């Protein structure tokens, strides 16, 4: 294949008909009895209810001890999963906000879906720190609410920063997503004949009439929100990384963590978006809207961020050696050669080695290959969090207190349940809201921006 990258590539292939764009995107919402959709919903709801429910019942009924957490490793899978899901929640905002500010119009066809994934990933992520506390029914103690006992939260604790960082991120991302949805809800309102749907879409579209003024305000609001979101993309995972970096534990106590975590989050977020999009474009017949070019670009981002985390991995080792701190250097040798070496090398293979195949154009335009690499990246990034959390804790300063963490079946069930929750959200979203931003997409189809060049910037 020979592509001239200096040439503008059509973002939407094969159609210039704006009506057709609407039709394709609205189809999943207007054709409710798609058996593939029902099947997917059934699977994810079952995961959520049966796996997640069983784990939850045991957790709330008996205690944190149903998980594998133990004395040196007091944080286990739930924290790993929390960081994993928060990380996945990064791609959406990055794609929609940062790429928007950078005028990367190719983002338009994938932004909406990525944003939705952010919302559901953050919701899923939030479940974990809540359930992770020993007494979830007292989790409101983490909020600085006025009370007659004058008890206040500890603003020095990174966990409290987390509470603010993640909730802010969620709020802003949610509004960003919703603002983008308003014109599309209006489109849906206008298309539907169903009474209830009409009512709901009318409510959601907030009286949108596609007027020029509306568009003007909309563009301004969207730009401001994008501006607000951009620092948040960097801040949330920086603060999540403080949970580790602020501590005193070798393997955690590292200044490289904030950028390293952000890069990792984008890496994992893109991987998850890729995984899901590859399926979605197939199911919803959107191959011409979410094109191979999109996938290729995302593969490039994947490789770039993969190299970044690879750099971080090696820098951690270098510093551990360079610092000369006994416990610190031990932790890293122990990571690579100790009882969790299997997890470490899984992480290295998935995150650093495998994405390197994207140096080859042929492979990064090969959908099955992209799909597989996106999956391995997801696995690798989960293991990254596992390696950081568990291997650092399991052998820290006092050799007398070293241990080995083994998860229980309830750790696994809750993790599966979290996938159920995430996909239930994503699937319901795909059913009731446009998975691609119609308005934005119509703005970038060929010929949508007429000019004296005939629509093309050649």
């Amino acid at each position, binding site marked *: 294949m020979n592509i001239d990258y200096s040439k503008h590539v059509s973002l939407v292939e094969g159609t210039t008909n704006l009506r057709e764009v609407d039709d394709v995107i609205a189809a999943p919402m207007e054709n409710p009895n798609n058996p593939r959709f029902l099947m997917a919903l059934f699977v994810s709801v079952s995961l959520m209810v049966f796996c997640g429910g069983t784990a939850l019942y045991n957790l709330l009924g008996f205690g944190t001890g149903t998980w594998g957490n133990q004395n040196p490793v007091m944080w286990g899978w739930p924290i790993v999963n929390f960081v994993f899901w928060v990380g996945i929640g990064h791609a959406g905002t990055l794609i929609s906000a940062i790429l928007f500010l950078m005028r990367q119009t190719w983002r338009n066809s994938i932004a909406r879906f990525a944003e939705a994934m952010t919302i559901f990933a953050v919701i899923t992520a939030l479940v974990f720190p809540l359930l992770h506390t*020993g007494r979830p029914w007292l989790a409101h103690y983490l909020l600085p609410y006025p009370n007659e006992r004058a008890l206040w939260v500890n603003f020095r604790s990174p966990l409290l920063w987390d509470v603010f960082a993640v909730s802010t991120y969620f709020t802003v991302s949610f509004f960003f997503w919703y603002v983008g949805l308003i014109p599309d809800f209006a489109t849906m309102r206008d298309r539907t004949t169903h009474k209830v749907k009409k009512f709901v879409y009318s409510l959601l579209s907030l009286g949108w009439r596609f007027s020029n003024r509306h568009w003007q305000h909309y563009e301004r609001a969207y730009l401001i929100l994008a501006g607000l979101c951009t620092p948040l993309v960097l801040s949330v995972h920086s603060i999540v990384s403080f949970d580790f970096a602020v501590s005193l534990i070798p393997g955690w106590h590292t200044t490289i963590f904030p950028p390293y975590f952000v890069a990792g989050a984008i890496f994992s977020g893109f991987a998850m978006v890729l995984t899901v999009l590859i399926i979605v474009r197939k199911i919803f017949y959107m191959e011409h809207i979410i094109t191979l070019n999109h996938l290729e670009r995302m593969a490039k981002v994947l490789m770039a961020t993969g190299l970044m985390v690879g750099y971080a991995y090696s820098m951690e080792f270098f510093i551990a050696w360079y610092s000369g701190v006994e416990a610190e250097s031990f932790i890293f040798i122990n990571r690579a050669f100790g009882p969790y070496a299997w997890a470490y090398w899984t992480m290295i293979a998935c995150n650093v080695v495998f994405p390197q195949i994207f140096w080859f154009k042929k492979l990064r335009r090969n959908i099955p290959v992209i799909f597989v690499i996106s999956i391995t990246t997801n696995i690798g990034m989960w293991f990254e969090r596992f390696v950081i959390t568990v291997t650092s804790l399991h052998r820290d300063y006092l*050799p007398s207190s070293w241990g080995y963490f083994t998860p229980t079946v309830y750790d696994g069930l809750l993790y599966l349940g979290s996938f159920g929750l995430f996909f239930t959200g994503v699937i319901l979203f795909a059913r009731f809201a446009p998975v691609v931003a119609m308005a934005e997409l119509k703005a970038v189809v060929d010929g949508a921006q007429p000019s004296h060049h005939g629509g093309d910037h050649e």
Partner: protein
Amino acid sequence: MSKDLKEPNYWTSLEDYHKSTPASNGEFQEFPEGVSEALELSSMTDVSRRKFLALLGASAALAGTGCSNYVDPGKIVAYNKKPVSVLPGRANYYATTLTEGGEAFSVLVKTREGRPIKVDGNPDDPINKGKSNAACQASLLNLYDPERLKSPLQLVEKVQKEVTWDEANKSVIAALAKAKASGKQIAVVANSIKSPTFAKLLSDFRAKYGDVRVYSYDFFNDDSKVNAWKKSYNQSELPIFDWSKPKVFLSFDGDFLGRGSNLVQRSAQYVQTRAAVDKKSSSRTYIAEAGMSITGMNADHRLKVSPTHQLEFALCIASEIVLKKSVSNYSKYGTISQLLSKHSLSAFVKKHGLSEKLIHNLVQDLVDNKGEALVYAGDQLPQEVHLVVNFLNEVLEADKMYTEDYIMEQVPRAHIGDLQSLVADMNTDKVGVVLHVDSNPVFHFDGALGYSKALTKVNSVISVVSGVSETSAVSNIVLPMTHDFESWGDTNARVGLLNLQQPLIAPLYDGVRQFEDVLLGWMNGVYKAQAYYAYLQNNWKSSYFKASKDLKTFNDFWGKSLHDGVVTIDQKFKRNLSFNASSLNLVSNGLNPKDGYVLEIQENYSIGDGRNANNGWLQEVPHPVTRVVWDNYAAISTNTAVKLAVEPNQNIKITVDGQSVVVPVFVQPGMVDGVIEITAGYGRKVAGTVGTGAGFDVHSLMSVKSKFGPFVHDGVEVVKSHGTYDVISTQEHFSFKEDIPEILKSRMKDAHLRRDIIQEGTLDGYLEDEKFLVDKQANKRKHLFSLYEEEHKYNGVKWGMAIDLNKCSGCNECVVACNAENNIPVVGKEQVSMNREMHWLRIDRYYSGTVDEPVVSLQPMLCQQCDNAPCENVCPVSATTHTPDGLNGMAYNRCVGTRYCGNNCVYKVRRFNYFNYRANYEEGFYQKESFHLAHNPEVTVRSRGVMEKCTFCVQRIAEGRAEARRNDEVFDGSKVTVACQDVCNTSAIVFGNVNDEKSDVAKLRAHDLEYKVLEELHVKPNVSYMAKLRNTHKEA
């Protein structure tokens, strides 16, 4: 509100009287009408704003209280009639006596509102001087054990059924009468009897019922030592050594810091010789042993010698000392020189691969310190070894260190031979009644003696027990007895010393009776409660009371005895220390072991002879060496494991004289190859929820035929068996595992030394350079800096602790004391296997050196109460905060359980309630009502999801502070002690106010040997460790 209440018609002053009509005309009222009055809903209109708000508020409050009640708070009922001397909230202390494992402990029991909650040694006791042991601490759980038998049982149609006491007594009296009539023996099988009054009662019982024979045995005993002494000195009482005097100790497989009787006093005396910190001097300890014991961990030099070779080794040492070094004029020992000349130390050293230099030094040390060297042998070794040890002590003139103190038996102790003849009598139908008094011979002797089979020939088997046991299960009549804390009694366990036992609480259950009362009932025909109390008083009146100036009447004497718990009386033994040299001829044939493996059965460190098996605190306290909980196991060396082709946890089958058991393997560094060490006392089959099935019963291996005595066996067959069994240790023992990559292994080895967690030196090195540690630590502190110009100042009291590693033997008694003081739950073996033990205080054990010759370091580890505590700043809800007196406080009710503090603790001393452990363990066993009584009411009982840790017994600090305030004193903290410190037999733990320069802890903090763990992290811990100085021989 009625009108006349609103307008009071009384007045208290004239001013009041004249002002009594308030200005009702608005202008003096600050608030408009209706606002400042009480809320009266009925008087309001339906749509009143205030009514609406009031109802809204009330319903919200109701909903709030309704929903928030997720824990049943229970009921607190006030005293209807307050007992004299009980002030709610204030503890009372009573002196009493606890009989535990053949020993009597004078204890001081803390009671709150009439229930015992903490046991400590009686400070007035001249023997133990206020110290006690783990079993004493844990006796509370025995008292409150819900599985205590609550009513007599009688065998009816092959099933034990509950009967009334009257029925049971009737049957017993009939059985006794029948035995008397038919001239059959009535056998009383008890543990060693320390009570003179009970002994008298038994003799009265004999007078009434004829052929009553008392078999009082201790399963773990020093019979072989006593027998040897008898032969060496023609006296069956052996004097107690003064362990504070020797400069050199040589122990032949004798774990004198961990096993045997008189341990509390012995440990306290021994550490006086380890005075590296106080006096810059130390004794030197050599031990020759096969398994790793507490003494082995603490010894300066440890030699690996199989128990079957101990006799040969002792003879070789004797030969070397007497013949080569001519320490003593051996001609006075007659033919002994001929015997000794047959034994050559150099040949022995060569044959067993010992270090020649070390042995040379050992002999030289013994010779050089003649008169100040003590030789000791383990109770489990055969009599022959003890004979040689007696000879060695004689030659080395150790008799200067014998005291005039003796351990007393009120009834001559039964040896295994006596029990053998009892079994023979039972088998030949000569025994009419067997009465087991709080003893469990079926568990102990079923294998070796066929005890339960013999019991089937006896008409009436009566067991007096506190809870069901193997013996009670095969009895016709089972009678529940009171706990020591519910009983009257006395002991005379030491020459010249009486202990009085008084009840601290009425029997917890109606169906429980003091056995002595019951026995008196059998003698008199009628049971009378408190009959023994009168009997006891009468006996004391006639035997011990002598009017003196201070104590004119018996009542005065009795009152003082009750108060003090101890009474000294005029009682003496005539010592005979003339050595009978011919006794050594008994060893002339030596003891040649057969080929095959050697089995050494040792006393376990926690649950006694099995009697404490149902005690969760003791089951969960880790083995001092291996840190294994809830089990016993076969300890073998790495080489033996390779030879047997077994991995840890693999079951092996051990066969002795046709008897075999299957036990899992534990690979123990420092074991002698070819020796298997197993601790006995485990493997109870009928013991209750906690004890049943914990560990393995190896008593059947204790063949009486062994020439090495019941505890040591040669020619043992060992084969790999099927399956594995999880032996759970609280510490991983990976440091010697083979399958670790070299790059990691080199870093794991001696990590505790390279990280300066353990800092050690030698005494000689210290004397050369006393500042060696100070300089090192100062160099470390140089690199620390703070962001703040001024560090926080602690005014007034600031708490700190100093632990002397020269004194700590790693016995774990502090761990149990901490459990008792701080309401620490039992979690069970399965939870320990997930590293979820809850102990706030633990003893860390580290190995350095090689697998074959390990060097052990011990370190009690508890919350270090850091000034810059890493746990504090990471807690999002401020549940753990710093107190003004320098503690890391814990607000349990505020904790939501994020566990961040636990992760960030560099000492890993925080413990998390992963479950509500009281509910989680065995379906809520420790949640049963009786255990509520055992809780210390001053310490929150933590529920699930809460982090907990040591807070230096903050409840005691608070009590001390309140006491000082009440007495109008300045609180300087000098009177506050912590639970671990109180129990520590070797006084290794010192606690106090570091701001007070005169306090012991402040002095120790300024000592040259002081260091703190992980000081380089600048967390500023407040627990100081005094570096251990090993007194190794210069040339070693």
